[in-house]
Structures are given as C-alpha cells and as structure tokens.
C-alpha cells in the first residue's frame, strides 16, 4: 500500500458566503483584500469538420482515410506523391488541392507517451497512452491512442512496434473513433 500524501488536496469547492463585514475604521479597508468569488462558465460549440469531414465519415465506417498531394513527390518514395496521414485539404508545399486515399490498417509507433495526468477533460481517463503512428505509405504521422499495452511499464522499445487500427463500434465522430493496438492481437 502506498503512503497517504502528507497534505489534503486543495480544491475550489467550499462554502457560499453572501455578505462580508466592514471595518469601522476605514484606514483598515485594505485588509479586506482579497475577496475571491467563483462562477461557472459553460458553452456549446457547433464545430464543422468542413473539408476534413470525409476522414471522420471514414472512421465511422471502419476506414482510415488520408490525403495525397496531386503534384509533390514523396521524399521517401519518389514512385508516389506526398501523403498526409492526418488529412489536409491542400498540399503544404504546392498549395494544390489534395486527393483522398485509404491507408492500410497496419502501421508503426513513431513515438508515444503515457499520460498519468491530463487536462481536466481527460483526467478521468488517466493513465492513457498517446502515440504518433507512421506508415511506409505516408510521409506524415497520425496522433492516436495506443491500447493493449501496460501503462505502468512504458519502454523505448515501444517505438517501432507494429500496430493496427481498431475502430469504435459506435462512432462518436471524433478522432478517437480510431485507436491502435499491438499488431496480431485477436480482436
């Protein structure tokens, strides 16, 4: 069993106060500093995936889509054009419109990390593994979650590992509709 930490966690929950007292002697007014108040703030956004929408539609159908430059060669394979594993509507080098292509399900871990803490929105999911995936058939990478590994035993050996794409059965139209697991595992 791990030891308890030596202090209680600080939170901004607490008591609601509706009034404060006032000193009789106005020269003591500065002692009333600081008053700190709390209020909530929440918003719903309508965010369009716009020209990138086919990527998300592809994920919902178990397909991994990327975009290919129509006029720039791949530096690693001059027999084909430059492929963006994370889709872009226009080529970063030539400015021309890209074409949609499909990527194979199998790729390799280019780099990764295990997040034991995270942004507030993701804290409940900690620990989770972020990874960038590389393909022979593409020139850029894709950010994803890596599943099926032990988050307590991260190792540099994970870099270069063969992995394969899995898709959520119930699409959320989010980039996490696809995630990767070590290749060759039974689904």
């Amino acid at each position, binding site marked *: 069993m791990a030891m308890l930490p030596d202090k209680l966690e600080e939170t901004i929950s607490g008591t609601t106060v509706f009034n404060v007292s006032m000193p009789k002697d106005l020269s003591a007014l500065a002692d009333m500093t600081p008053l700190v108040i709390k209020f909530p703030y929440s918003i719903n956004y309508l965010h369009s995936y716009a020209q990138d929408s086919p990527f998300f539609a592809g994920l919902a159908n178990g397909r991994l889509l990327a975009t290919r430059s129509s006029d720039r060669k791949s*530096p690693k394979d001059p027999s084909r054009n430059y492929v963006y594993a994370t889709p872009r509507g226009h080529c970063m080098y030539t400015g021309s419109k890209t074409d949609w292509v499909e990527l194979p399900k199998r790729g390799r871990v280019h780099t990764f990390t295990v997040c*034991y803490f995270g942004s507030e929105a993701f804290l409940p999911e900690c620990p989770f593994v972020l990874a960038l995936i590389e393909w022979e058939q593409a020139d850029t990478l894709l*950010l994803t979650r890596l599943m099926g590994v032990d988050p307590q035993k991260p190792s540099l050996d994970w870099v270069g590992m063969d992995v394969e794409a899995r898709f959520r059965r119930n699409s959320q139209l989010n980039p996490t509709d696809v995630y990767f697991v070590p290749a060759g595992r039974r689904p």
Partner: protein
Amino acid sequence: MKAMRDVYMVAGGVSKFDKARHDVTFQAMVKEAFDYACHDRFLKRPIRVEDIDGSVASYFSDHFMRQLKAGAMVQDYLGLCPKPSHRVEGGGATGGLAFQEGWKAIASGYMDACVVYGWETMSHVETWKGNEFIALASDVSFDYPVGGFYTGYYAMMVVRHMKEFGTTAEQLAHVSVKNYRNAFHNPYAQKHEKLTIQDVRNSPMVAWPLTRRDICVMSDGAAVAVLCDEKAARTFTDRPVRITGIGRGTDAMRMADRPHEKVILLPWEDEKDYKHLKYPGVHSFRAGRAASKQAYEMAGIADARKDLDFIELHDAYSSSELQTYEDMGLCQYGEGGRWLQAGNPFMPRVEYGLDLPRKGTLPVNPSGGLIACGHPVGATGLMQAVFALWQLQERIGDHFGDTTLQVRSPQRGAIHSHAGTGTYVTVSILERAW
C-alpha cells in the same frame, strides 16, 4: 534584413511571480513591473509617461481571465491613453514576439520610446483546467480530442529524441537541477528549492518520461521592457543595451505534419554531420533553428558557441531546453544530452552537487528559467529580456541582492521564446553598448 536605425533597451521590471496573485488585479500587477522599470535607480532620470510614445501589450489567453480587451485596461491603468498600442498573442512566444514588435516600432522610426508590457494571470482556474485551456493551442479537430495535454505532446517529442540520439531521462533532470539551483539566488523566482537528480526522477510522473519537476509551473506575473532609439537611450542611461538581431521561425501546428527531410544548417555546421538525420521530425524544433539563424545573421554572429556569453531560453520543459541547445547550434543535433551533462550550460559559481568537467562555458538560464521562475505566459519572454538587460549592465547583484548569478563581463546574450510545440519561436540578440 536590416534595422532602419539602432534599437536599445534601457530599463526593465518584473513583478513577483507567484502561483496566485490575489492581492492585485492584472493591471496593478503590470503597474508593479512598469514602476520598477521607470524608476530603476540606475537611470539618469526616471522615465515619465510623457517620455513614452506608445506600447505593445503581451498576453496569451483570453480564457484564463474571461476578460477580452484586457490590453486596453492595462493601457489606461498605466496612464498611457491615448497613445498608440496593440496586443500581441503567439502562445508561449507571446513575450518574445511583443518584444520584437517594440523593436520594430523603434527601428522603423514610428516611435522613439516604446514600453512593452506583458502578463498572465493563470490562477483563476484550477491547474488541470488551465492545462485544458493551454491544450486548445493544438488542432481541435485532430489533436485536442485525442487527449489534449501539452506535457503529453512534449513527452512524445522527447521520447523520439531519446530513441533517435540516446538521450536519457537522467540527462533531462540535469536541466531541472541546474535551473532550480540557479533560481535559488533569484528573488523573483517562484521556486526556491535545491533539487537533486533523484528528486527530479522521484517526483510524480506526469507524462513519461517527464515528471512534475521537468515541467514549469503556472503563475501570475508581469514584466516590462522599455525600448528606445539611440538619442532617448543616452538620455536615460549610461549603460544602454543594443538589440542587434531579431529572428522568428514557424512550424506546422500539428506535430504529425512536420517534415522528415534535411537539416537547416548554421554557418559552422556541415551537411555531412547529418547524413542520416530526418529533420525536424518531432525530435527537433525547426522554428527555433530558423529563428536562431535569422537573429545570428542580423547580429553578425559567426559562431554562437563562441560569440554568446549567456542565453535565457524557453525551458517550459527540461526536454525542450535540451532540444533548444541543438536548435540554437550550441552543439550538434543529437549532442544536447552530452553537452549538458558535461556542464557547459551551468553557472560557473553555483554548486550543483554534480561532476561537471566543462562547467559554465556558456550559461543557459542563469535566472532559473521558466522551470523555477514560473511561466506567466505573456510575461515570460519579457522577463528574459529584463534579466538579460541586467546581466549585460552587470547589475544582477543590485536587482537580485545576490551576485552569484552575474555572468562575468558579458558582452552579448540571447533570449529565446517558444510557443505551441514549436509553432512560433523568436530569438533576439542583446549587446552591451557603452
């Protein structure tokens, strides 16, 4: 690129950086730094509002305070209305960009004296909500929803650096030990603790391999830089500092999109050294290399390894400090870990409890950097400028009340400000000019 006329920095001020400055509003916090700069006791005479032609406001996030047009509120609080001003925002590089905007105002002749003020108040939300706001500085379609967390992004970058070059987590910890020990002598720093390599490695793991001690903290704080043309500079001080070079670079927002091609070479490098290196990938910051190259060329720096006496650089993470040594050409790409471990960027007169055979050849972050001083985003790049000014003026002892961190007779220093996993990076060169 060439300035139309020379630009000088004459004064600077830094507020106390702290986890939460509930005692002052952001305007009053900037005023602390502004008053310190204008009443620097070594000025020939105080700088008055009527001496100032205009300003640049430097702050990053509208989310942290839920206050838009906050720059206008500082402008009126300082009594600078109706003089010209504009706000600059560029993530972590906001301060460096604002400093260069002030430079442009003077270099172009638009102003003779320009005050650049920066701040951030990050205490209005809890740490993990703050991390969420910062992570919004990643693509909200493709990156943020996967697990948006900046420490996670930087961790992935350094894991690739480790794989590519053999860099180790223990080497990274050397950065934290150095910056914490330096900050022990800097009263402006948020942290005053003496750490060992073990302390860094044993603190809670945040995103492997980065622990809590590899990461800067969120802060409330402000900093101010006063820039002038030559005539005004000579009016205010007999120790003016000239800004002899500025440089900026950029890279793709999504790390995934960065190229794997050829290294941008500095004059003292050879293409042969990088025959097998795919650049920048996610292990290096191409924007930092581009910014350095521009700034060095403008300042006439032939070899940064010999021509710089100190650097204040953007160490939001121990890993990004190490990676930046290489981008700035202090050592070859891949050599950062060894260059660090040999002691080169340490302070010659600070005791670190480490074996450092080449201790202090080129001090980096003598102030303690972001890791130990804190990182109130819009203030950080200007804090670096202020500490660089005081170094070059040889006034560190006067402002810090401790001479330990004074670099011996420095002639030239560099400041480096960095945003969004390397999307915007600035480098500015400051030189003694008396």
